[in-house]
């Protein structure tokens, strides 16, 4: 009974803490989250509150992975940029994962942006 009570309290603790991993904080992205663009972006840039090393950045559209290259040997920086291939109109989901240079903790997140159909003419 006591053990169950303690376990329940620990679960409550996890709920209190919220569902997201949270150490290095993402300050902004380019393109911005939920942006609707008339021109396809050439790159994705993530800005954090501290120096990080980019571990994973994947871009997908309609379940199709867009090939991007992540340099895992790059030095830690508060801003990381990944070059994108030529993108066609559609909605793209970006999933990223970084390691904090200071505390070694992993942080991850997702956001999406849309390239409007009109962009095809650009």
């Amino acid at each position, binding site marked *: 009974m006591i053990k169950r009570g*303690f376990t329940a309290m620990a679960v409550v603790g996890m709920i209190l803490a919220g*569902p997201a991993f949270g150490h290095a904080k993402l300050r902004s992205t380019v393109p911005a989250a939920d942006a609707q663009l008339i021109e396809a972006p050439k790159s994705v840039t993530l800005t954090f509150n501290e120096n990080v*090393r980019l571990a994973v950045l994947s871009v997908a559209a309609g379940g199709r992975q867009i090939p991007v290259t992540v340099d895992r040997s790059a030095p830690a920086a508060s801003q990381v940029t990944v070059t994108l291939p030529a993108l066609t109109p559609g909605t793209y989901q970006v999933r990223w994962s970084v390691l904090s240079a200071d505390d*070694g903790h992993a942080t991850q997140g997702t956001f999406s942006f849309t390239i409007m159909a009109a962009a095809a003419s650009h």
Partner: protein
Amino acid sequence: MSPNQWAAALIGAKTLGYAGTLGAAGAVFFLGYAGSLITSSELARIRRLVLTCAALSAAAGAAHIVLTAGSMSGETAGMWDGSLIRMVWQAGAGRALEIRAIGLSLTALAMLMHRPPRWGLLGAAMAATSFAWTGHAQSLSPRVFPVLLLGAHLLGVAFWMGALAPLDLVARDGNASRIAAVAERFSAVAVFVVAGLILAAAPLLWLLLGGFAELWRSSYGRCIALKLAFVAGLLSLAAFNKLRLTPRLRAGDADAVRSLRTSIRLEMWLGIMVLAVTATLTTIAGPPALD
């Protein structure tokens, strides 16, 4: 695996890592101050306990590194991705694990002696404080003071939590006066160690929270508040053991032995909860002062 499943696996591995490391270190400290009061069969059990805890710590540390790599990739295959594992290792986890491995190796070697030599105690201290080589305290600037505070706090936690299993082993014997002697030896040192542990934690908490109002405002603070509630329970049990049970043990009261064993087991469960909440807040919540 979903992000929450990765988080749960990471918290589990970290909790086991804390329990194994602090358990091994604390048991070695226990032999240092109470080794002369225990029997050879108890010594053999405590040696096995130290070796088991050290093996658990090593396995949990390795598991935490591969789970971190997997959680970053979002796929189980990421756990075996060499470049991701290298990144995690280079980000501080590797250095902490190396120091822990050296410390635990020294403690394991010290178990060959009847009483742990100084280098065995040094190994236990190295292992216990290895967690300060990575984590939130490393993000504060300047980092020297908070890292030293965390190191002192970890030594205190190892002393306290790591003594519980050896105390339970001694209490199994049922000899009330001998149990009282061991409990008194522990209490004599614990009063100062626990006071030091709290004195080290308070300024560290203030530095990480950036103000005590964050205890209820932020998710990190709410986790800390839950941890403090468990610690209050531990302190109450420790005071009960010292002020009520130890005098009864000294008087040869056999019922007090049973009460002490129940109390120690409750302390062990509370201790595991403290470690689990610590693992949670260091895995999924960031300190407000670093926002």
